């Protein structure tokens, strides 16, 4: 039972990651290849604040989101006026830099040894204080944050701001002829996307209570991107569905009963096959309405 709850916690964290990426990729049409870097920043910020300065994880969560958001601004600012593809390369480059810093600045991050013993969330209510140490407790926290994320983002995307994002995706030049300062909107999009990805990273850190750079590699960024594409770009529900399916499908393939010697590679091949089939027959994703141009 705890195993299933654990899977749901992971799904919840990835749902936040996928939604935050969908705003950038699916709604604004910017191929962003380094999303894991934002969750890396959120995770390390919150963990280091807690471990070194005793900061409460609640504040650490917020700090992680804010720092990741600032990183989003710093990354995109120089690349804003470049053509779309170059912005994608900039995000990719940034994710490699973030990973390298985490891995090599051993004095700060303990490098590949990682940060163990990350404090858990604590709730102090009516004189009683307890840690969120049980999986079901954490699941409630993650679900609450995921739902809040969903509500805030869907509200934002329904409003004029969101409409401008879609216009940038559809035709940036036409958008400019309607008076939209498109580079500024792109900057704001990375602010928002980075913030929620940072929150997701911090949630991960205080759950697993150990982080190391290997959780935030390029493959991670690509996995999150696949969740967005798979579930349906340009719809938040699609991002959540994508996160769910791309975690649950590989996990459930564990139970198919393959001989242990070939189980792992076969799982990976099946996983890849499912993705390919989907991209051929339904490139807009499970519930998406928008196809990559």
């Amino acid at each position, binding site marked *: 039972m705890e195993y299933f709850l654990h899977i749901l916690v992971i799904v919840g964290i990835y749902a936040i990651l996928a939604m935050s990426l969908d705003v950038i990729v699916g709604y604004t049409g910017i191929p962003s290849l380094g999303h894991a870097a934002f969750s890396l920043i959120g995770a390390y910020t919150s963990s280091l604040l807690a471990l070194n300065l005793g900061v409460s994880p609640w504040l650490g969560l917020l700090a992680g989101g804010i720092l990741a958001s600032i990183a989003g601004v710093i990354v995109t600012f120089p690349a804003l006026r470049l053509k779309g593809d170059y912005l994608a390369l900039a995000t990719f480059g940034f994710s490699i830099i973030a990973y390298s810093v985490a891995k090599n600045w051993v004095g700060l991050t303990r490098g590949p040894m990682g940060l163990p013993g990350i404090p858990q969330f604590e709730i102090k209510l009516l004189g009683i204080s307890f840690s969120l140490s049980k999986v079901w407790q954490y699941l409630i926290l993650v679900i609450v944050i995921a739902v809040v994320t969903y509500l805030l983002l869907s*509200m*934002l995307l329904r*409003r004029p701001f969101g*409409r*401008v994002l879609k216009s940038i995706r559809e035709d940036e030049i*036409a958008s400019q002829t*309607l008076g939209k*300062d498109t580079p500024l909107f792109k900057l704001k999009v990375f602010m928002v996307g980075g913030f929620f990805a940072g929150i997701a990273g911090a949630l991960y850190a205080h759950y697993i209570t150990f982080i190391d750079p290997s959780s935030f590699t390029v493959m991670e960024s690509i996995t999150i991107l696949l969740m967005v594409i798979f579930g349906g770009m340009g719809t938040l529900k699609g991002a959540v569905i994508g996160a769910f399916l791309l975690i649950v499908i590989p996990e459930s393939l564990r139970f198919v009963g393959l001989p242990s010697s070939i189980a792992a590679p076969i799982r990976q091949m099946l996983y890849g096959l499912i993705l390919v089939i989907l991209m051929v027959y339904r490139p807009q994703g499970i519930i998406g309405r928008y196809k990559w141009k």
Partner: protein
Amino acid sequence: MELKTKNEKRKTVLRVQDLSKSFDGVKALDNLSFEIGKQTITAIIGPNGSGKTTLFNVICGFLRPDNGNIIFNDKKITYFAPYKISKIGIGRTFQMIRVFPQITVMENLLLALQTERKEGLLYGLNPFIKHSDKELEEKASILLKMAELKDKSNEYAGNLSHGQRRLLEIMRAVALDADLYLFDEPTAGVFPEVRTRILNLFKSIKEQNNTIIFVEHNMETVREGAERVIVLDKGKFIADSKPNEVLDSKVVIEAYFGG
């Protein structure tokens, strides 16, 4: 500053001074100078490669001129970014239609109608404000009715026919309530009924006190829609007069069919 013509004082909306633009040594615009009066409809015609679209792109800020100035309502706008040019009152359509295909017709118009203040991030994330598009949707409906696109309101713009998309792109520009409209081949490839609708839209725009410059290859449109025709050839003006005079002039015919 006012340009006095014969019997009336008319304000100059656009003044282009000594505008030049070259690409790889080829002069697309060759020291162009002209003025456009308020509430006029001017057509710019010329053979392919004469510089018409380049002129629009330079005015709208997508290209920097090599030299020269562009003055709009007495303001120098030569090096303004495209979004700024739109904000100060110049609306534009494109030769290759640029509607937003994967969003609805209504949303296309709302993008032109919505205010900058409400497009902000803080407004968007504020859960204590109740936002409604209703007022803008009503304004948009009026525009859609004018273009006879009301029943397509919830259709994805990409699913519209060619003529409907041209109408949508024009209405979207009109929704900006601009002082000056630059239409690039507004009636290209449309059926006669749609052409008539577009010409009627030109009339309404003029009645609202606004100004139109349009590029066209369709001479019917030019004859019926324009008050003044300017002819461009190899980046230079070769004629500037009333439609009938220009379209029957030898110089112009040679430019199109000659060497």
